[in-house]
């Protein structure tokens, strides 16, 4: 009798443990949601040209947008923004340019990851076009100028006067030559 009760309880408890293993994985999409909602991690959003045009321009307010570029680890690329800092009206669709160059003698696939500071500005920073939406493949020595079209939402919190958009180029995860890296990953913006 006792043994059966012990076994039943043990199975229930093992079930809880199994459930908590799943909970650990469930934290991944949950974290994504929290990031999207709060701007944690500086995630930027994507909107269509039509939606961007529909946002009312606030001609009385100016926001500084600064650009920061980084190349991760051993990726043999040069990467810079053409403009370092511009001033925009919230709601106005603006285009800026970035330049990447492959300085190595092999073809490399790169993936840029954006981040916006301060985090509370991130939910209001949306892009209609960005080289970070897809992976970029550069031939040896190839130089590429890449546009980014963005709009800072007119409802950007009042205290924010400067927004910094930062990009880091990574070697795309995938079966590339040379560096030992994680195998085929998925495209993502």
């Amino acid at each position, binding site marked *: 009798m*006792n043994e059966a*009760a*012990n*076994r039943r*309880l*043990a199975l229930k*408890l*093992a079930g*809880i*443990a*199994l*459930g*908590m*293993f*799943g*909970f*650990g*994985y469930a*934290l*991944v999409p949950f*974290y994504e949601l929290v*990031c999207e909602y*709060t*701007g*944690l*991690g500086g995630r930027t959003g994507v909107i269509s040209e039509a939606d961007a045009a529909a946002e009312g321009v606030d001609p009385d307010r100016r926001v500084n947008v600064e650009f920061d570029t980084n190349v*991760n680890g051993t990726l043999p690329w040069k990467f810079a923004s053409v403009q370092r800092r511009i001033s925009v009206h919230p709601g106005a669709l603006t285009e800026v340019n970035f330049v990447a160059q492959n300085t190595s003698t092999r073809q490399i696939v790169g*993936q840029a*990851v954006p981040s916006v500071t301060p*985090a*509370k500005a991130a939910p209001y920073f949306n892009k209609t076009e960005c080289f970070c939406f897809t992976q970029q493949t550069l031939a040896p020595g190839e130089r590429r100028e890449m546009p980014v079209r963005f709009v800072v939402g007119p409802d950007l919190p009042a205290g924010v006067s400067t927004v910094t958009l930062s990009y*880091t180029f*990574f*070697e*795309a*995860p995938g079966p590339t030559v040379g560096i030992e890296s*994680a*195998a*085929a*990953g*998925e495209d*993502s913006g």
Partner: protein
Amino acid sequence: MSDAVMHGHEHHDHHPTGWKRWLFTTNHKDIGTLYLTLALVMFFVGGAMAMVIRLELMHPGLQYVDPQFFNSMATLHALVMIFGVVMPGTVGFANWLIPMMIGAPDMALPRLNNWSFWILPFAFSLLLLTLFLPGGGPAGGWTLYPPLMLQTGAAMPFVIFAIHFMGASSIMGSINIIATIFNMRAPGMTFMRLPLFVWTWLITSFLLIATIPVLAGAVTMLLTDKYFGTSFFNAAGGGDPVLFQHVFWFFGHPEVYILILPSFGIVSQILPTFSRKPLFGYESMVYATASIAFLSFFVWAHHKFTVGMPLAGELFFMYATMSIAVPTGVKVFNWIATMWRGSLTFETPMLFAIAFVVLFTIGGFSGLMLGITPADFQYHDTYFVVAHFHYVLVTGAVFGMLGGVYYWLPKWTGHMYDETLGKWHFWLSAISVNVLFFPQHFLGLAGMPRRIPDYALQFAEWNFISSIGGFVFGLSQLLFLYIIVKCIRAGAKASDQVWDGAHGLEWTLPSPPPYHSFVSPPMVTDATAHS
């Protein structure tokens, strides 16, 4: 003739002899001994690593080991001490004591018990063998943060599988403990009559079942990120390394209470005995322990205030962290109130228990300082953090366990340990551990980062003093080993009662207790229940 009768009657006492007895045993006392022995061995393995760390840090500059090896020493020291000493050690106490304290003949699931112990030697072989692999052992810190952890060489899968094994062992052990406490209590042993050690282990078991699987998930994600192309923590693939820190500390903060709660229980057994008074505020002790465990799920982000989070998040985690000081304060108050106007005597277990109360409280206070978000930006990843968690883990969890060993060793072995040597061990440990860790507060406040093999010259003096304390503390533990061996082999015969102020079912059994105790359950009344 009577021998034959006895044999026929006590055929349960038959068990394989030699190594087979230990390999196949399902007896809670044998398995408790195995756990405690493993913890003791690992205590010296992890301790040897600490000696390497303190040796290198004794003087500025790189003297004895290269930085990569230094970092793997720091990483393995933590993993061994947490998963190899405190966790198996307290499970050893649980195995030995819980059945005897609640009047049960054995653990509820004896075969599972055997299995949960015997996967541990394999886990630690895997972990320690990584030192001999190309690229060396894991060197990214015990918190295994990516992307640094993902740069580990051949050691990486070994470390992760070792953690899986340790986790599986902990979960099985916890299931067993909960089933034992729920289903195997003697008649009259109601929940509110359980000794406090049993209560703390019941709550610890639930913490383990809820959080160890989350750790298992996190390290599995690391494994698939490195070898199977997932991008949970790989920014280039759309992941986020900060996510790992959230998942890890969701496990990590309850884990620190997993490490300390059993020692809370041990101290709550020792103090009443040598104060010759019942434990002050038994019910509030139970509720405080449960509150600490519950709150531990909502404070994880205080380990990484500097990672960047909204102000609201920083405030929430700061206040939640501070609120844990309330139930912890209740416990410290009750321990002191237990001693208040008691007829105190200062045998070795009592000395360790009193030192626990004082020194754990110091560690608690430095924890409160770290919990203040704006202050944490200065303290984060400095030696102040190192000093803090060594106060709560060494002078907290480990001192509680050392006191517990002295307290129950006469019961387990039937011999009294050498009281004079025990007192020497205590005073050497208590003084040297403060020489070892107190200066680290100053180093941290002055800005010395943790996990570095070399440092600026301004930190030289305190590091030298800290290292001297470390060597004395390390050597003192050899005395502990000698005392245990001496006590097992010989010593004055211990009475059943052992300590005149001790209460509880385990003291009604002979010293040492028979291989199978409480085969017929005792009747528990208020008089024979907890002190």
